[in-house]
């Protein structure tokens, strides 16, 4: 059974139905890239997976656990905040705008959750954090505050922070779209390596080269439904659906002269 198993997920804001029945399975070790125009519901879907938004219908299982609810005797019981927090620990999330804690150094950002949530020993947490920082190439910047780091560096720290909780699943929401074109590469490199090491990942991205190279499956969403999905060479290389074709054409047009 897949690590992520989402069935018929629906979600509305007020009367605006943003997700209209999304199905998605992600096997352990797989990388899924989510594409789609702005407003298609990609971010909302990621947030539903780790319960930053509660869903209106359908079910999401991660690692065989029903997210956000307990099902007993055919009835759903909303989990307590504490239990939801526990479920979230298994899932790392990286945001478009990094969302590092600005009042903590890079190192403090990384050890915060292990210390506060998993109650690890300070020394052990620091050692592991330094290893993670080293892995994302920032061991020398451990004492820098986020404001003293470039965007690419901040995003790499954010990835390390998520990894520090040793999650089973990583969610990335446009992790490079707030970065200078030059700094995109360093973040994608870290993500590529993570994929190679077998981390299960769902990545919302506009970086086609990354999707082509790293993704096992590419999912194209539009207006709250999955329009097309499959291996990257099909969905990106030879899209079937006219909406996918139009979207990719629009993206391409700006870069063809390079």
């Amino acid at each position, binding site marked *: 059974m897949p690590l992520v198993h989402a069935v018929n997920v629906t979600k509305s804001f007020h009367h605006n139905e943003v997700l209209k029945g999304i199905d998605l399975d992600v096997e352990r070790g797989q990388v899924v890239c989510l594409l789609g125009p702005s407003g298609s519901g990609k971010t909302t879907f990621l947030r539903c997976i*780790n319960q*930053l938004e509660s869903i209106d219908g359908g079910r999401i299982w991660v690692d065989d656990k029903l997210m956000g609810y307990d099902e007993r005797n055919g009835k759903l019981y909303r989990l307590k*905040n*504490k239990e939801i*927090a*526990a479920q*979230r*620990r298994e*899932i*790392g*999330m990286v*945001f478009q*705008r*990094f*969302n*590092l*804690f*600005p*009042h*903590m*150094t890079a190192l403090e950002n990384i050890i*915060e*959750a292990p210390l*506060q*949530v998993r109650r690890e020993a300070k020394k052990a947490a620091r050692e592991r954090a330094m290893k993670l920082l080293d892995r994302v190439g920032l061991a020398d*910047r451990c004492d*820098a*505050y*986020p*404001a*003293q*780091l*470039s*965007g*690419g560096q*901040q995003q790499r720290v954010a990835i390390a*922070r*998520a990894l520090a*909780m040793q999650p089973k699943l990583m969610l990335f929401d446009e992790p490079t779209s*707030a*970065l*200078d074109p030059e700094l995109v590469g360093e973040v994608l490199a870290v993500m590529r390596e993570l994929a190679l090491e077998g981390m299960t990942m769902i990545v919302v991205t506009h970086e086609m080269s990354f999707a082509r190279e790293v993704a096992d499956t590419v999912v194209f969403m539009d207006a709250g439904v999955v329009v097309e999905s499959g291996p990257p060479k099909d969905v990106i290389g030879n899209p079937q659906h006219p909406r996918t074709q139009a979207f990719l054409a629009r993206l391409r047009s700006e870069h063809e002269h390079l």
Partner: protein
Amino acid sequence: MTSDAQSRPQDAVAGRPGRIDAVPVRHPGRWVAIGVIAVLVGMLVHLLVTNKAFDWSFVFQAMNQQPVISGFLKGTLLVTALSMVVGVGGGVLLAVMRLSDNPILSGVSWVFTWFFRSIPRYILLFSMGTLGILFPQGLSFGVPFDWKLMEWFGLSGDLRFLNLDANQVFTGLVAGVIGLGLSEAAYMAEIARAGMLSVDKGQAEAAQALGMSSGKVMRRVVLPQAMRVIVPPTGNETIAMLKDTSLLVAVPVIGELFYQLQSIGTTYYKTFPIAVAATLYYLAATSVLMIGQYFLERHFGRGFGTKAPRGPRAARPAGAGGA
């Protein structure tokens, strides 16, 4: 501007222009303002030095009285500190309640704020004093924490200053601290709420996504950042509280700076020097508080680029995290 157009080509021909060493703009208006201020300051100093109404030797004598010093330390500083502890704690609690989804909690918080912001502190303290006399037990049951604090204080009072009898301290000061603290909590609630709202939502979400409980999110991520916005108005509040301790007389508590000074003033019929003495004490306390505020602001401003960054490269505006 036509002269520029003419000078340019010649200049360009005459080799590459070097350092700019320009005559700065004159601001005559600004200098006039500075002059006016200087004259006013001069007048003030002249007044201070020459006007006999100040009676400086009496001022310093009055300031050096033992009851005055002890009133300043215990009545003014300690009550300010305790009231602000109650006020800040209560204010944060009220702000959290106000922002909660539960309409009852949020409504209660609103009503509390509305009521305690409206009631003058003098009247509140007067009522607290009356309540204290009516139900001395009731009060002590209601706020065990404060009693603990006061017990500790009572001990230190016995050890250091012997001029207030314990009975008076326990009834009066507790009522005073509770009254001032409740009133302050209502003001602090608004300040804390504004501070919490100023923290980017992405911060709380990032913390939640790491599996932190809502309490942890508040304590470790939201509040420390909210402090940047909370500290400056709290400085204002603390300074105001410092002076509002003089309202303790309504409780009544008389072991407080202003009352003690006034009673000297009444004895020697020197009102103005007494006012000067009080002002000097408050100036001193305010100065210390402002220094404290400076360091607090610096502490909570860390990582926000309010000072020159220590790293080799400043943040890009587009890349600054959720700040």
